[in-house]
């Protein structure tokens, strides 16, 4: 019997080794260790053994069973491992294939520029004010110190709807409206973005519709130096810390003194190049100290209050910042254009 057990062990280990899958392995298990398996068969003959031999054979049989069981377990785990490896291999992908695109749109560049400016000024205590795009002659012109027949009205050929109504040519009427709402009491600190319209033929540098964003700060004792400091903060935020600004005298009917703000040219660092027409400076916006007539017409005492205002075109800012060559790109909505500005 000893011999038989040894033989069984030998046979079992060989068959376990040869098993190619879990099914075969199960068959081997049943054949050797099952209720009718080989070991059980051997143990059936135990009755014939002497009292002394029984425990010895019994023990040997147990040892053989344990060894077979262990071999089975080990083989099983090997087979499982192999199966898993096969599965993983089958599941392997080409990681260089493109991923499934996330459906994502984005903001229009002009709105992005406007939002950026709004965010800067709201943190400086400004509110965002809006107003109608179809304006009265009074708010668009007269309240801004542009009486009828004023020559400066020529500067902005307008789309009139009736004698008294027109497409606003600037966002300044929002300033006039907001000032009135404050009934002569400062401070008024607003930023006014919006669409404006001029009687222009659309081409690479003109658009009959465009956007503007203006700022107004009216309070007691506001100085031109405050305008300069505010614009400096703005310019560095918008165009970079290394850029400088300069103000130079200009003229707007609604401000006195008036100033144009230039920033130092990024391309040539002020040396003069084709972008800045050799001057080293690029014109960015118009500004000035609010004209006393504008304050008085809005119900503010111009002896007590003073203020500054500035206005710019987001189109121009975007064109300068990104080197965009044609203003019409902002309004054709070519997705190849729009999508370039969807990043942060």
């Amino acid at each position, binding site marked *: 019997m000893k011999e038989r057990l040894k033989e069984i062990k030998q046979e079992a280990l060989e068959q376990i080794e040869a098993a190619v899958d879990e099914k075969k392995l199960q068959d081997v298990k049943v054949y050797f260790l099952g209720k009718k398996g080989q070991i059980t068969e051997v143990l059936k003959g135990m009755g014939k053994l002497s009292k002394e031999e029984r425990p010895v054979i019994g023990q040997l049989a147990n040892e053989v069973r344990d060894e077979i069981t262990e071999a089975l377990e080990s083989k099983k785990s090997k087979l499982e491992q192999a199966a898993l490896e096969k599965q993983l291999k089958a599941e392997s992908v080409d990681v260089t294939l*493109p991923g*499934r*695109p996330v*459906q*994502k*749109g*984005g*903001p*229009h560049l002009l*709105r992005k520029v406007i939002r950026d400016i*709004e965010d800067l*000024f*709201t943190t*400086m*205590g*400004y*509110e*965002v004010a809006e107003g*109608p*795009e*179809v304006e009265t002659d009074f708010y668009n012109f007269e309240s801004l110190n542009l009486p009828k*027949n004023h020559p*400066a009205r020529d*500067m902005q050929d307008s*789309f*009139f*709807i*009736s004698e*008294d*109504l027109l*497409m606003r040519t600037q966002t300044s009427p929002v300033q006039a409206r907001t000032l009135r709402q404050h009934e002569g009491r400062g*401070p008024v*600190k607003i930023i006014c973005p919006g669409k404006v*319209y001029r009687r222009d*033929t659309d081409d690479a540098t003109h658009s*009959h*519709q465009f956007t503007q964003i203006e700022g107004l*700060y009216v309070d007691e004792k506001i*100085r*031109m130096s*405050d305008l*300069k400091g*505010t614009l*400096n*903060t703005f310019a560095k935020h918008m165009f970079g810390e290394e850029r400088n600004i*300069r103000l*130079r*005298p200009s*003229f707007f009917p609604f401000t006195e*003194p008036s100033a*144009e703000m230039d920033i130092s040219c990024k391309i040539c660092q002020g040396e003069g190049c084709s972008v800045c027409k050799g001057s080293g400076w690029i014109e960015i916006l118009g500004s000035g*100290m609010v*004209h006393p007539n504008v304050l008085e017409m809005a119900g503010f005492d111009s002896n007590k209050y003073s203020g500054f205002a500035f206005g710019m075109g987001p189109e121009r800012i975007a064109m300068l910042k990104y080197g965009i060559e044609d203003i019409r790109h*902002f309004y*054709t*909505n*070519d997705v*190849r254009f*729009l999508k370039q500005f*969807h990043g942060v």
Partner: protein
Amino acid sequence: MLVSRKWLEQYVDLSNISTDDLAEKMTKSGLEVEEVTGPALDDENVVVGYVEQCEQHPNADKLNLCQVNVGEDELLQIVCGAPNVAQGQYVVVAKPGAVLPGGFRIKKAKLRGETSNGMICSLQELGYDEKYVPEQFKDGIYVFDEDVTVGEAACPLLNLDDEVIEIELTANRSDCLSLIGVAYDVAAMYDKDIHLPQPEVDISSGSSSDYISVKIDDEEANPYYGAWILKDLTIRQSPLWLQNRLISAGIRPINNVVDVTNYILMEYGQPLHAFDYDRFGSKEVVTRLANEGETIKTLDGEERTLSSHHLVITNGEEPHAIAGVMGGEESEVQEDTTTILLEAAYFSPGVVRQGSKDHGLRSEASARFEKGIDITRVKEAATRAAQLLSEVADGEVLGNLVEEGSTEKDPINVSFTQDEINARIGADISIDDMKQIIKRLRFNYELDGQTFTVESPARRQDIVIKEDMVEEIARLYGYDRIPYTLPVGVRDKGGLTKRQKLIREVNDYLQSAGLNESLTYSLTKAEWSTRFVSPEIQNQNLSPIGLSLPMTDLHSHLRLSAVPELLSSLQYNVARNQYDVALYEIGSVFLQHEPRKQPEENVRLTAAVTGHWENHPWQGIKVPADFFVVKGVLEGLFNHFLDGQVEFEKAELEDMHPGQTAVMKLNGETMGYVGQIHPIVQREFDLQETFVFDVDLDRVLDETDDGEDYRAITKYPTIAQDLAFVVDRELPAKQLEQAIYEQGQPHLESVKVFDVYQGEHMEEGKKSIAFNLIFQNDERTLKDEEIEETRQAIVQHLETEYQAVLRG
């Protein structure tokens, strides 16, 4: 305004100041320099030569062999191909070593076997602008017409060495529409003296008043009129110096009389007019407003009809000029003119503007009258003109000006204190510095303590109020020297309003949903302004607002919907092979409730989507945009902002697909629509299936409830049940869903469609629709019997109300 450096130097000493420095100083002081041009040529090897001999080149028919005296020991032999070269001419010679414009270097050369030691030049070769080249020199070399010295540098003679500064004047600085005006400002910038002309004229014994009288009919339109008679003039070409000045100012020389009036125009900013006295037709000038329908043939040969808004210069009968705008053809100065009537007047800005505008005649002269000239200098300018005319046209000036009206101007005084100026600028400028600045400006002033009273000079109409002086002082003190500060005061919170924040949220939502923000035009075609208008606007029967004077038919009317312009944007993209496009716009449409009143501006959210919504071909994911994709975007929006209380109802709208269009209603009122555009419209815009929506965003924002209620997450389990029914195909799913929800109370938490089937194995006109029901109670676990009871009630209700058949 073109400012010649050399001309400016007549009045202000600019030695040691480079033109670049000058340009920068001008820009920084308020006269913005657009461009500096020149010198065109400044080469000492370009000299005056005298053609001693000129004969045909032995080997070439069209070439001449010239012996030219350039003031050197030997004559220069020069081969010249110009047809007009001849012996005895004073010409411009570029000697070997000269470099002409364009880098053209002159060398000794052999032409057809003959040595050529330089070039006899045409004006074009010297860098002259073609438009200023006199007719007789257009196809040949230039020949001097006046006394010049052989060997003398030619560039200064032709003013080629001048530099011209182009300044872009702001509307308030019309004082700088003259060289003298610019000179005043430049002198102030550099604190220099100014040397003005002191015109004097030799008056002959005759008297202009024997020839002419002046009568002003409307003193407001014409406060002053001066007339002067000059006799025995010779009309000819102006001397070179005068031509040079005009060319530097961008004016083409014509003849000596016209050139002098133009010279004065540029020097003083005073427009003058010369009539041919013998053709004027009377001995009186009467200025008056024109009669309605009166006509005049102007210098340009046009017959012009006048109205009572126009001022005319008449001979007592007929108009001979539209005042300040253009003279009449009849009394135009011509080659045979010998006597002129010189007009020096002040016409009021309004009447000249009306004339130039109505006749489309804007000129250097009218522009100056329109902005208002210096009335106190009219006589001085006239005297200067008379002086020059007697010099360059040999004219005899008869007596004094015959005048009517006054050149006086009431002085304007502006008072301010040192503190006021400094407080407004934010600088610390001393009284002495302020005094200096005012002196440099040559403004008369008085100082009492720290209070200045400045008399605004007549030439500076822009100095009227204190703030004007703030600017004068600030600009001459230097904007650069103003410090950088921020306003001192209460720091207010600032920030966005709730509405503004919500709009940003709407934008963020739509962008995260996959739509691209767009901007289209508010002004659209007349035809488009009435299309795709949402029913709640359509029902108001509003007319679209049209512009009085559109630039183009493409943008003539204010939109009532942004859909047409967005469709046009889709078309633009598709035409460029961009087939999958999803655009949205937030913007106003314009509702005119009452004519001539400001319209209501309704902010709407509009979108247009075409092509694939999702396109990921290698994994086989190709989801075309369809009704439910765009509806889903809207539902997401409404869920977010309106707790999903919006109802979609099937609708038939013009230009929309009759089977795939819905209107949205909030509390029973329409607030927009969504759907596929009609296939015919798709073809019109060259589009495939395209879906749009147009929603009243103002209403969404008005009704947005910003409160969010928290409901504790229940610990009791939910129970799911599915129910499928066969119903009429036309029965809206929403109705069934609503019925199930109501019947399912109080335990039914939610109900959702999860399958719809119609087609094979389904009776004609029927569809199968399956719902997923979720039951829940926050306080306890629901019992099976409760759910079964509810389920039965639902089934029974649907069977009786909708003839629904429960599918097993």
